[in-house]
Protein backbone atom coordinates (compact mmCIF):
# COMPACT_ATOMS: atom_id res chain seq x y z
CA UNK A 1 0.00 0.00 0.00
CA UNK A 2 1.56 3.21 -1.10
CA UNK A 3 -0.74 6.11 -0.08
CA UNK A 4 -2.16 6.72 3.40
CA UNK A 5 -5.55 5.18 4.19
CA UNK A 6 -8.80 6.89 3.27
CA UNK A 7 -12.51 6.21 2.95
CA UNK A 8 -14.05 6.09 -0.48
CA UNK A 9 -17.50 7.13 -1.66
CA UNK A 10 -18.81 7.24 -5.17
CA UNK A 11 -21.24 10.00 -6.13
CA UNK A 12 -24.07 9.10 -8.48
CA UNK A 13 -25.18 12.63 -9.37
CA UNK A 14 -24.00 16.20 -8.93
CA UNK A 15 -26.46 16.73 -6.07
CA UNK A 16 -25.27 13.52 -4.44
CA UNK A 17 -21.64 14.67 -4.73
CA UNK A 18 -22.46 18.09 -3.27
CA UNK A 19 -24.37 16.47 -0.40
CA UNK A 20 -21.50 14.08 0.33
CA UNK A 21 -19.02 16.92 0.16
CA UNK A 22 -20.90 19.11 2.62
CA UNK A 23 -21.67 16.16 4.94
CA UNK A 24 -17.93 15.40 5.13
CA UNK A 25 -17.28 18.63 7.06
CA UNK A 26 -14.21 19.52 5.10
CA UNK A 27 -12.69 16.02 5.06
CA UNK A 28 -13.99 15.10 1.59
CA UNK A 29 -11.66 15.44 -1.37
CA UNK A 30 -13.01 15.10 -4.90
CA UNK A 31 -11.41 12.64 -7.27
CA UNK A 32 -12.21 12.73 -11.00
CA UNK A 33 -9.62 11.18 -13.32
CA UNK A 34 -7.16 10.93 -10.45
CA UNK A 35 -4.24 11.76 -12.73
CA UNK A 36 -3.03 14.64 -10.64
CA UNK A 37 -4.33 13.48 -7.28
CA UNK A 38 -3.24 9.82 -7.27
CA UNK A 39 0.42 10.59 -8.09
CA UNK A 40 0.41 13.15 -5.25
CA UNK A 41 -1.16 10.64 -2.87
CA UNK A 42 1.40 8.02 -3.82
CA UNK A 43 4.13 10.47 -2.84
CA UNK A 44 2.11 11.29 0.30
CA UNK A 45 2.19 14.93 -0.67
CA UNK A 46 -1.58 14.76 -0.40
CA UNK A 47 -3.20 12.69 2.36
CA UNK A 48 -6.98 13.04 2.11
CA UNK A 49 -9.01 10.97 4.56
CA UNK A 50 -12.03 10.69 2.31
CA UNK A 51 -12.30 10.57 -1.46
CA UNK A 52 -15.55 11.40 -3.20
CA UNK A 53 -15.45 9.96 -6.71
CA UNK A 54 -17.21 12.16 -9.28
CA UNK A 55 -15.97 10.30 -12.36
CA UNK A 56 -19.21 8.43 -12.99
CA UNK A 57 -21.63 11.35 -12.83
CA UNK A 58 -23.27 11.27 -16.26
CA UNK A 59 -24.33 14.95 -16.45
CA UNK A 60 -20.86 16.20 -15.59
CA UNK A 61 -19.36 15.07 -18.89
CA UNK A 62 -20.15 16.15 -22.42
CA UNK A 63 -19.72 18.94 -24.94
CA UNK A 64 -22.71 21.04 -25.96
CA UNK A 65 -23.38 24.00 -28.21
CA UNK A 66 -26.19 26.35 -27.27
CA UNK A 67 -27.07 29.74 -28.74
CA UNK A 68 -23.58 30.24 -30.07
CA UNK A 69 -21.92 29.33 -26.79
CA UNK A 70 -19.92 26.18 -26.19
CA UNK A 71 -20.08 24.32 -22.92
CA UNK A 72 -17.73 21.54 -21.84
CA UNK A 73 -18.73 19.54 -18.78
CA UNK A 74 -16.02 19.45 -16.11
CA UNK A 75 -15.99 15.65 -16.12
CA UNK A 76 -15.15 15.41 -19.83
CA UNK A 77 -11.91 13.49 -20.32
CA UNK A 78 -9.12 15.01 -22.41
CA UNK A 79 -9.53 12.35 -25.11
CA UNK A 80 -13.16 13.33 -25.69
CA UNK A 81 -12.26 17.01 -25.93
CA UNK A 82 -9.40 16.24 -28.34
CA UNK A 83 -11.68 14.25 -30.65
CA UNK A 84 -14.89 16.30 -30.36
CA UNK A 85 -16.39 17.12 -33.81
CA UNK A 86 -18.20 20.15 -32.34
CA UNK A 87 -14.96 21.61 -31.02
CA UNK A 88 -13.03 20.71 -34.18
CA UNK A 89 -15.58 22.65 -36.17
CA UNK A 90 -16.23 25.69 -34.00
CA UNK A 91 -13.24 26.12 -31.74
CA UNK A 92 -10.40 23.81 -32.77
CA UNK A 93 -7.88 25.36 -30.39
CA UNK A 94 -9.50 23.60 -27.43
CA UNK A 95 -9.35 20.19 -29.11
CA UNK A 96 -5.75 20.85 -30.19
CA UNK A 97 -4.79 21.76 -26.64
CA UNK A 98 -6.37 18.64 -25.17
CA UNK A 99 -4.52 16.53 -27.73
CA UNK A 100 -1.17 17.83 -26.42
CA UNK A 101 -1.84 16.69 -22.83
CA UNK A 102 0.33 13.85 -21.57
CA UNK A 103 -0.21 10.63 -23.50
CA UNK A 104 -3.21 8.52 -24.59
CA UNK A 105 -3.60 6.83 -21.19
CA UNK A 106 -3.57 10.17 -19.38
CA UNK A 107 -6.07 11.60 -21.87
CA UNK A 108 -8.38 8.62 -21.34
CA UNK A 109 -8.67 9.37 -17.60
CA UNK A 110 -7.86 13.02 -16.89
CA UNK A 111 -10.66 15.59 -16.92
CA UNK A 112 -11.01 19.27 -17.73
CA UNK A 113 -12.39 20.08 -14.27
CA UNK A 114 -9.54 18.24 -12.56
CA UNK A 115 -6.95 20.09 -14.59
CA UNK A 116 -8.48 23.51 -13.83
CA UNK A 117 -8.98 22.77 -10.12
CA UNK A 118 -5.46 21.42 -9.72
CA UNK A 119 -3.95 24.36 -11.66
CA UNK A 120 -0.51 22.92 -12.18
CA UNK A 121 1.74 25.81 -13.28
CA UNK A 122 2.55 23.77 -16.41
CA UNK A 123 -0.98 22.58 -17.24
CA UNK A 124 -2.25 23.29 -20.74
CA UNK A 125 -5.96 24.05 -20.34
CA UNK A 126 -5.52 27.20 -18.23
CA UNK A 127 -3.79 29.00 -21.12
CA UNK A 128 -6.56 28.29 -23.57
CA UNK A 129 -9.29 29.13 -21.06
CA UNK A 130 -7.65 32.53 -20.61
CA UNK A 131 -7.42 33.10 -24.36
CA UNK A 132 -11.11 32.27 -24.76
CA UNK A 133 -12.10 34.42 -21.76
CA UNK A 134 -13.98 31.35 -20.54
CA UNK A 135 -16.46 31.27 -17.69
CA UNK A 136 -15.89 28.61 -15.06
CA UNK A 137 -19.15 27.43 -13.52
CA UNK A 138 -19.13 26.32 -9.89
CA UNK A 139 -21.72 24.76 -7.60
CA UNK A 140 -21.90 24.16 -3.87
CA UNK A 141 -24.81 22.60 -2.01
CA UNK A 142 -26.17 26.06 -1.33
CA UNK A 143 -25.14 28.26 -4.28
CA UNK A 144 -23.95 28.50 -7.85
CA UNK A 145 -21.47 31.03 -9.17
CA UNK A 146 -19.48 31.87 -12.25
CA UNK A 147 -15.84 32.94 -12.23
CA UNK A 148 -13.96 34.21 -15.28
CA UNK A 149 -10.81 32.27 -16.08
CA UNK A 150 -8.76 35.43 -15.63
CA UNK A 151 -9.91 35.66 -11.99
CA UNK A 152 -9.84 31.93 -11.33
CA UNK A 153 -6.10 31.19 -11.47
CA UNK A 154 -4.43 32.92 -8.56
CA UNK A 155 -1.14 31.28 -7.64
CA UNK A 156 0.74 27.97 -7.68
CA UNK A 157 -1.97 25.26 -7.45
CA UNK A 158 -4.29 27.96 -6.12
CA UNK A 159 -7.63 28.88 -7.66
CA UNK A 160 -10.84 30.62 -6.66
CA UNK A 161 -12.61 27.44 -5.57
CA UNK A 162 -13.94 26.68 -2.08
CA UNK A 163 -13.52 23.19 -0.56
CA UNK A 164 -17.28 22.59 -0.79
CA UNK A 165 -17.54 23.65 -4.44
CA UNK A 166 -17.47 21.57 -7.62
CA UNK A 167 -16.57 22.87 -11.06
CA UNK A 168 -19.49 21.83 -13.24
CA UNK A 169 -18.56 23.22 -16.65
CA UNK A 170 -16.75 25.86 -18.64
CA UNK A 171 -18.50 28.09 -21.17
CA UNK A 172 -17.09 30.32 -23.88
CA UNK A 173 -17.89 31.93 -27.19
CA UNK A 174 -16.10 29.90 -29.85
CA UNK A 175 -13.17 31.51 -31.67
CA UNK A 176 -11.92 29.88 -34.87
CA UNK A 177 -8.87 32.12 -35.28
CA UNK A 178 -7.10 30.72 -32.24
CA UNK A 179 -4.21 28.37 -31.71
CA UNK A 180 -2.00 26.81 -29.04
CA UNK A 181 1.78 26.47 -29.26
CA UNK A 182 3.61 24.35 -26.72
CA UNK A 183 7.20 23.60 -25.84
CA UNK A 184 7.01 20.08 -24.45
CA UNK A 185 8.76 18.74 -21.42
CA UNK A 186 9.90 15.57 -23.16
CA UNK A 187 9.07 12.97 -20.53
CA UNK A 188 5.74 14.04 -19.02
CA UNK A 189 4.74 16.30 -21.94
CA UNK A 190 3.69 19.08 -19.59
CA UNK A 191 4.30 22.58 -20.97
CA UNK A 192 7.68 24.18 -20.38
CA UNK A 193 6.02 27.12 -22.05
CA UNK A 194 2.56 27.04 -23.62
CA UNK A 195 0.83 29.94 -25.34
CA UNK A 196 -2.78 30.13 -26.53
CA UNK A 197 -3.73 33.04 -28.76
CA UNK A 198 -7.18 34.08 -29.97
CA UNK A 199 -7.76 36.88 -32.46
CA UNK A 200 -10.85 38.92 -33.16
CA UNK A 201 -10.47 40.37 -36.65
CA UNK A 202 -12.92 42.35 -38.71
CA UNK A 203 -12.51 44.53 -41.82
CA UNK A 204 -8.84 43.66 -42.03
CA UNK A 205 -8.00 44.89 -38.53
CA UNK A 206 -7.25 43.02 -35.30
CA UNK A 207 -10.00 44.37 -33.02
CA UNK A 208 -8.68 42.50 -30.02
CA UNK A 209 -6.31 39.69 -29.13
CA UNK A 210 -6.34 37.47 -26.07
CA UNK A 211 -3.26 35.52 -25.17
CA UNK A 212 -2.86 33.03 -22.31
CA UNK A 213 0.53 31.83 -21.12
CA UNK A 214 1.21 28.71 -19.04
CA UNK A 215 4.35 27.02 -17.74
CA UNK A 216 6.34 30.20 -17.31
CA UNK A 217 5.22 31.58 -13.96
CA UNK A 218 3.35 30.41 -10.85
CA UNK A 219 0.03 30.23 -12.69
CA UNK A 220 -1.41 30.89 -16.12
CA UNK A 221 -1.60 34.59 -17.02
CA UNK A 222 -2.74 36.83 -19.87
CA UNK A 223 -0.04 38.57 -21.91
CA UNK A 224 -1.77 41.93 -21.81
CA UNK A 225 1.18 43.90 -23.21
CA UNK A 226 1.18 41.83 -26.40
CA UNK A 227 -2.60 42.01 -26.57
CA UNK A 228 -2.49 45.81 -26.39
CA UNK A 229 0.25 46.00 -29.02
CA UNK A 230 -1.83 43.94 -31.45
CA UNK A 231 -5.09 45.84 -31.11
CA UNK A 232 -5.66 47.94 -34.23
CA UNK A 233 -2.90 46.23 -36.26
CA UNK A 234 -3.38 44.51 -39.57
CA UNK A 235 -3.53 40.75 -39.13
CA UNK A 236 -0.13 39.99 -40.64
CA UNK A 237 2.64 37.68 -39.58
CA UNK A 238 4.89 40.68 -39.39
CA UNK A 239 2.66 42.58 -36.95
CA UNK A 240 2.38 39.44 -34.84
CA UNK A 241 6.14 38.90 -34.82
CA UNK A 242 6.65 42.50 -33.77
CA UNK A 243 4.14 42.27 -30.91
CA UNK A 244 5.34 38.82 -29.81
CA UNK A 245 8.76 40.27 -29.04
CA UNK A 246 7.20 41.95 -26.01
CA UNK A 247 5.93 38.65 -24.63
CA UNK A 248 7.02 38.04 -21.07
CA UNK A 249 9.10 41.22 -20.83
CA UNK A 250 6.95 42.49 -17.96
CA UNK A 251 6.84 39.15 -16.10
CA UNK A 252 8.84 38.61 -12.94
CA UNK A 253 9.72 35.35 -11.19
CA UNK A 254 9.92 33.17 -14.29
CA UNK A 255 10.13 29.49 -13.33
CA UNK A 256 13.45 27.71 -13.49
CA UNK A 257 13.77 23.96 -12.86
CA UNK A 258 15.59 20.84 -14.02
CA UNK A 259 13.68 20.93 -17.30
CA UNK A 260 14.42 24.51 -18.30
CA UNK A 261 16.31 27.39 -16.73
CA UNK A 262 14.70 30.75 -16.09
CA UNK A 263 16.73 32.29 -18.93
CA UNK A 264 15.68 29.62 -21.39
CA UNK A 265 12.01 29.87 -20.48
CA UNK A 266 12.15 33.64 -20.78
CA UNK A 267 13.67 33.29 -24.24
CA UNK A 268 11.02 30.82 -25.32
CA UNK A 269 7.99 32.93 -24.35
CA UNK A 270 8.22 35.26 -27.40
CA UNK A 271 9.03 32.32 -29.68
CA UNK A 272 5.94 30.36 -28.71
CA UNK A 273 3.79 33.51 -28.59
CA UNK A 274 4.72 34.16 -32.19
CA UNK A 275 3.94 30.56 -33.16
CA UNK A 276 0.55 30.71 -31.46
CA UNK A 277 -0.26 34.00 -33.21
CA UNK A 278 0.84 32.61 -36.58
CA UNK A 279 -1.35 29.57 -35.97
CA UNK A 280 -4.31 31.85 -35.24
CA UNK A 281 -3.59 33.86 -38.41
CA UNK A 282 -3.50 30.66 -40.47
CA UNK A 283 -6.99 29.81 -39.25
CA UNK A 284 -8.16 33.30 -40.15
CA UNK A 285 -7.09 32.76 -43.75
CA UNK A 286 -8.84 29.41 -43.93
CA UNK A 287 -11.98 30.99 -42.51
CA UNK A 288 -12.37 33.86 -44.98
Amino acid at each position, binding site marked *: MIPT*AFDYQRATSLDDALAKLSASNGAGKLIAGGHSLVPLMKLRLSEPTMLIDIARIPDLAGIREQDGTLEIGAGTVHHDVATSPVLRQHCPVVADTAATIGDPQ*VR*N*RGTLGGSLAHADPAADYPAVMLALDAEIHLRSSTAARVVLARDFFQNVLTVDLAPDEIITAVRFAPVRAASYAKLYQRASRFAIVGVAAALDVSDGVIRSARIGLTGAVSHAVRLTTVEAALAGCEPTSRACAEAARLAGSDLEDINGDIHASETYRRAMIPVFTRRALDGALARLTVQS
Partner: protein
Amino acid sequence: MAQVSVTVNGKTHTANVEPRLLLVHFLREQLNLTGTHIGCDTSQCGACTVLVDGRSAKSCTIFAVQADGSEITTIEGLARDGRLHPLQEGFWEEHGLQCGYCTPGMIMSAVDLLNEHPSPTEREIRDGIDGNFCRCTGYEHIVNAIQYAANKR
Protein backbone atom coordinates in the same frame (compact mmCIF):
# COMPACT_ATOMS: atom_id res chain seq x y z
CA MET B 1 -12.70 -1.94 3.51
CA ALA B 2 -14.76 -1.48 0.38
CA GLN B 3 -16.31 -4.01 -1.93
CA VAL B 4 -15.18 -4.04 -5.55
CA SER B 5 -16.64 -6.04 -8.33
CA VAL B 6 -14.79 -5.99 -11.62
CA THR B 7 -14.93 -8.12 -14.71
CA VAL B 8 -11.40 -9.03 -15.68
CA ASN B 9 -10.89 -10.75 -19.02
CA GLY B 10 -14.54 -11.76 -19.01
CA LYS B 11 -14.63 -13.17 -15.48
CA THR B 12 -16.27 -11.28 -12.62
CA HIS B 13 -14.32 -10.96 -9.38
CA THR B 14 -15.72 -9.54 -6.17
CA ALA B 15 -13.44 -8.70 -3.27
CA ASN B 16 -13.14 -6.60 -0.17
CA VAL B 17 -10.19 -4.27 -0.49
CA GLU B 18 -8.71 -1.26 1.20
CA PRO B 19 -9.66 1.82 -0.86
CA ARG B 20 -5.99 2.71 -1.15
CA LEU B 21 -5.18 -0.50 -3.01
CA LEU B 22 -3.99 0.34 -6.53
CA LEU B 23 -5.62 -1.49 -9.42
CA VAL B 24 -2.26 -2.85 -10.56
CA HIS B 25 -1.67 -4.43 -7.14
CA PHE B 26 -5.20 -5.85 -7.14
CA LEU B 27 -4.58 -7.47 -10.53
CA ARG B 28 -1.12 -8.77 -9.75
CA GLU B 29 -1.37 -9.75 -6.09
CA GLN B 30 -5.01 -10.68 -5.57
CA LEU B 31 -5.89 -12.07 -8.99
CA ASN B 32 -2.36 -13.32 -9.73
CA LEU B 33 -2.45 -11.72 -13.15
CA THR B 34 1.22 -10.81 -13.20
CA GLY B 35 1.36 -10.09 -16.92
CA THR B 36 0.62 -6.45 -16.09
CA HIS B 37 3.97 -5.00 -15.03
CA ILE B 38 5.02 -2.19 -12.72
CA GLY B 39 7.83 -0.10 -14.14
CA CYS B 40 8.10 3.39 -12.74
CA ASP B 41 5.18 3.52 -10.32
CA THR B 42 5.03 7.26 -11.06
CA SER B 43 2.52 7.27 -13.94
CA GLN B 44 5.15 7.76 -16.62
CA CYS B 45 6.22 4.47 -18.21
CA GLY B 46 3.00 2.69 -19.21
CA ALA B 47 4.24 -0.81 -18.23
CA CYS B 48 1.07 -1.16 -16.14
CA THR B 49 -1.34 -0.32 -18.99
CA VAL B 50 -4.61 -2.26 -19.10
CA LEU B 51 -7.95 -1.53 -20.74
CA VAL B 52 -10.61 -0.11 -18.46
CA ASP B 53 -13.98 -0.19 -20.21
CA GLY B 54 -12.16 -0.49 -23.49
CA ARG B 55 -9.76 2.42 -23.06
CA SER B 56 -6.07 2.19 -22.19
CA ALA B 57 -5.21 3.30 -18.68
CA LYS B 58 -2.24 3.17 -16.33
CA SER B 59 -3.34 0.77 -13.60
CA CYS B 60 -0.74 2.18 -11.19
CA THR B 61 -2.64 5.47 -11.24
CA ILE B 62 -6.10 4.09 -10.49
CA PHE B 63 -7.41 2.77 -7.19
CA ALA B 64 -9.15 -0.58 -7.51
CA VAL B 65 -12.30 0.99 -6.00
CA GLN B 66 -12.43 3.48 -8.88
CA ALA B 67 -12.72 0.53 -11.25
CA ASP B 68 -15.67 -0.99 -9.38
CA GLY B 69 -18.26 -1.99 -11.99
CA SER B 70 -15.77 -1.78 -14.87
CA GLU B 71 -14.64 -4.27 -17.46
CA ILE B 72 -10.91 -4.74 -17.46
CA THR B 73 -8.75 -6.42 -20.07
CA THR B 74 -5.17 -7.37 -19.32
CA ILE B 75 -2.55 -8.98 -21.53
CA GLU B 76 -3.75 -12.38 -20.28
CA GLY B 77 -7.13 -11.70 -21.87
CA LEU B 78 -5.97 -11.23 -25.45
CA ALA B 79 -5.20 -14.74 -26.72
CA ARG B 80 -8.26 -16.75 -27.75
CA ASP B 81 -8.43 -20.56 -27.67
CA GLY B 82 -4.68 -20.86 -27.55
CA ARG B 83 -4.24 -18.53 -30.52
CA LEU B 84 -2.25 -15.35 -30.11
CA HIS B 85 -3.94 -11.99 -30.65
CA PRO B 86 -2.74 -10.33 -33.90
CA LEU B 87 -0.71 -7.86 -31.85
CA GLN B 88 1.00 -10.63 -29.89
CA GLU B 89 1.73 -12.37 -33.16
CA GLY B 90 3.06 -9.11 -34.58
CA PHE B 91 5.46 -8.62 -31.66
CA TRP B 92 6.64 -12.22 -32.19
CA GLU B 93 7.04 -11.96 -35.96
CA GLU B 94 8.56 -8.49 -36.07
CA HIS B 95 10.84 -8.91 -33.07
CA GLY B 96 8.95 -6.20 -31.18
CA LEU B 97 10.64 -6.97 -27.87
CA GLN B 98 13.98 -7.64 -26.28
CA CYS B 99 13.71 -7.95 -22.50
CA GLY B 100 9.90 -7.88 -22.76
CA TYR B 101 9.32 -5.76 -19.70
CA CYS B 102 7.41 -3.05 -21.56
CA THR B 103 5.61 -5.46 -23.89
CA PRO B 104 2.30 -6.13 -22.08
CA GLY B 105 1.68 -2.39 -21.59
CA MET B 106 2.82 -1.63 -25.11
CA ILE B 107 0.40 -4.19 -26.53
CA MET B 108 -2.53 -2.95 -24.44
CA SER B 109 -1.92 0.61 -25.66
CA ALA B 110 -1.76 -0.73 -29.20
CA VAL B 111 -5.13 -2.47 -28.76
CA ASP B 112 -6.69 0.90 -27.91
CA LEU B 113 -4.84 2.53 -30.81
CA LEU B 114 -6.07 -0.03 -33.36
CA ASN B 115 -9.62 0.23 -32.05
CA GLU B 116 -9.53 3.94 -32.78
CA HIS B 117 -7.35 3.85 -35.92
CA PRO B 118 -7.72 0.45 -37.61
CA SER B 119 -5.27 1.46 -40.36
CA PRO B 120 -2.86 3.74 -38.54
CA THR B 121 -0.10 5.78 -40.13
CA GLU B 122 3.37 5.52 -38.63
CA ARG B 123 2.76 8.89 -36.92
CA GLU B 124 -0.48 7.60 -35.39
CA ILE B 125 1.29 4.47 -34.12
CA ARG B 126 4.06 6.53 -32.54
CA ASP B 127 1.52 8.88 -30.94
CA GLY B 128 -0.49 5.88 -29.74
CA ILE B 129 2.46 4.45 -27.80
CA ASP B 130 3.58 7.84 -26.53
CA GLY B 131 2.71 6.81 -22.98
CA ASN B 132 4.82 3.64 -23.08
CA PHE B 133 8.55 3.60 -22.59
CA CYS B 134 10.82 0.91 -23.96
CA ARG B 135 14.43 0.87 -22.82
CA CYS B 136 15.58 -1.83 -25.23
CA THR B 137 14.25 -1.79 -28.75
CA GLY B 138 14.47 1.81 -29.91
CA TYR B 139 10.77 1.48 -30.85
CA GLU B 140 11.38 0.70 -34.54
CA HIS B 141 10.39 -2.96 -34.31
CA ILE B 142 7.48 -2.12 -32.02
CA VAL B 143 6.08 0.19 -34.68
CA ASN B 144 6.51 -2.59 -37.26
CA ALA B 145 4.81 -5.08 -34.94
CA ILE B 146 1.77 -2.85 -34.58
CA GLN B 147 1.70 -2.26 -38.33
CA TYR B 148 1.80 -6.04 -38.83
CA ALA B 149 -1.25 -6.47 -36.61
CA ALA B 150 -3.09 -3.65 -38.39
CA ASN B 151 -2.41 -5.25 -41.78
CA LYS B 152 -3.56 -8.59 -40.51
CA ARG B 153 -6.96 -7.50 -39.19
